[in-house]
């Protein structure tokens, strides 16, 4: 049932974008998210769209993957369009059915908002497609590192994240095992009214939680036995190296931001 689990959407590869430092990718994506909100006319949206297109081409990820990553949110995009198209009363009146009126301004506004959402989703999907979860964790730990001075447990949070990543497949496998064991005892997970199905979850969750607590305790002991003593004095196998191309990537996005500042109306 849960075979071949892939955590996140990462697709291994070695394009320019794959090879970027996770910190530069995170920074660039964050900047892009800000910049998207600057766009407010056809030209600026076109520029952003071209930027995403170029990034996608350079990443060498098959458009199919990107489409799959975006599919779950299409409904949201359409809903956003409809909402804005119907409730913005600006510009020329296109048609009216009774009190229900649709204006040209509304359509345009709806298109812009939907397009903005699409751009955001495309860019973040690209980030998750080209960055392994563990790299993402390393990147976040490094970016938020300075917060340690304000007693934010950055190292611990990153470790929590990576341990979660490590145990998701294990827990899924275990869920499957428990489900089978309970099914053999006559629990029906698939059929029946919703209330019965919710009740069927209980004999699944209880053993799962008990096991997880056990695991947590065992793991803590094993970590201590291997000399774990917190982030202090710890070295890292995966060193992040910021290179020229990382600076380039961030600068490119910043430049696009400035161009948009001039071209927006």
């Amino acid at each position: 049932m849960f075979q071949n689990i892939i955590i996140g959407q990462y697709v291994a590869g070695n394009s320019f974008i794959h090879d970027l430092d996770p910190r530069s990718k995170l920074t660039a994506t964050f900047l892009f998210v800000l910049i998207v909100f600057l766009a407010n006319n056809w030209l600026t949206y076109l520029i952003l769209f071209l930027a995403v297109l170029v990034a996608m081409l350079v990443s060498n990820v098959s458009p199919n993957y990107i489409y799959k990553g975006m599919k779950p949110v299409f409904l949201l995009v359409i809903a956003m369009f409809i909402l804005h198209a119907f409730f913005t009363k600006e510009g020329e009146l296109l048609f009216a059915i009774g009190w229900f009126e649709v204006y040209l301004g509304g359509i345009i506004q709806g298109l812009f908002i939907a397009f903005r959402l699409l751009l955001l989703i495309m860019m973040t999907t690209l980030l998750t497609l080209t960055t392994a979860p563990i790299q993402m964790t390393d990147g976040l730990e490094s970016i938020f590192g300075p917060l340690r001075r304000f007693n934010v447990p950055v190292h611990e949070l990153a470790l929590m994240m990576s341990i979660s990543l490590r145990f998701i497949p294990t827990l899924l496998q275990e869920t499957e095992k428990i489900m089978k064991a309970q099914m053999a005892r006559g629990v029906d997970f698939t059929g029946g009214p919703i209330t019965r199905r919710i009740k069927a979850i209980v004999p699944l969750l209880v053993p799962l939680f008990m096991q997880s607590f056990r695991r947590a305790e065992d793991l803590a002991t094993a970590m201590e036995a291997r000399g774990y003593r917190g982030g202090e004095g710890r070295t890292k196998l995966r060193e992040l190296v910021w290179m020229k191309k990382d600076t380039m990537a961030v600068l490119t996005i910043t430049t696009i931001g400035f161009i948009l500042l001039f071209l927006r109306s």
Partner: protein
Amino acid sequence: MKKELIQINGLSFKYDEDGDEVLSNVDLTIHEGEWVSIVGHNGSGKSTLAKFLNALLIPNESNVVLVEGLDTVNEENIWEVRKRVGMVFQNPDNQMVATTVRDDVAFGLENIGIPPKEMVARIEWALKRVNMERYTEYEPHRLSGGQKQRIAIAGILAMRPSIIILDEATSMLDPIGRQEVLETVRMLKKEDGITVINITHDLEEAVNSDIVFVMNRGNIKIHGTPRYIFQQTEEIIGAGLELPFSLEVQKQLKSKGYQLSNACLTKEDLVNELWKLRLKT
């Protein structure tokens, strides 16, 4: 006389102030290069004892736990002791920390602050030692139980320990996995001179060790060579343990009036004794 690696004198311990003593007055000496088996029934205190050996539990002042001369009462020694004594636990799934084999072997090295360049070399070496170098990029859930335990051993090995403790490390494995793990450790003992402490309740596994300690309710009842220990059938049964197959056969034969001349520790020995039995009578 070989160097003493571990020395415990009169160690008593209870988890709760007003609970039962889990360890009472335990004495234990382990020498360099030995294969030591600690056997005992469930709850006899084996794991608790093991935790003292790598400073996961700290004795109070009146007890002595020395690891390579380092007193674990002294807090400054804890980290050094954990570097020198590696532990492999029972459940293969609950001791891998990282998302890939390579990162997991690195975990211990990161903890003790090894520079990244040296880490890479040590990881490669350790994975080769346990014959897992082809699995460097694997995620834990794609490994068998025996493979996971060997990764755990590699993670310890990379830290260059002098002692490896296996706390029922093979009890959740199938026969093949068990064989893989024991073979690996045997090789490490032979070629790298690592001292092995194997905790088990399977006496069969203790046959080839240099010395066996039998625990019963927090006490070390008897200790000695497997040959000596296996002759103390009353003690073994009294400690709630099952006799190894060959000994059980001998005991049954004896009760039927067939006395074998030598105690046979392995099935091969037993077969050899059996076919010679008629020749003598």
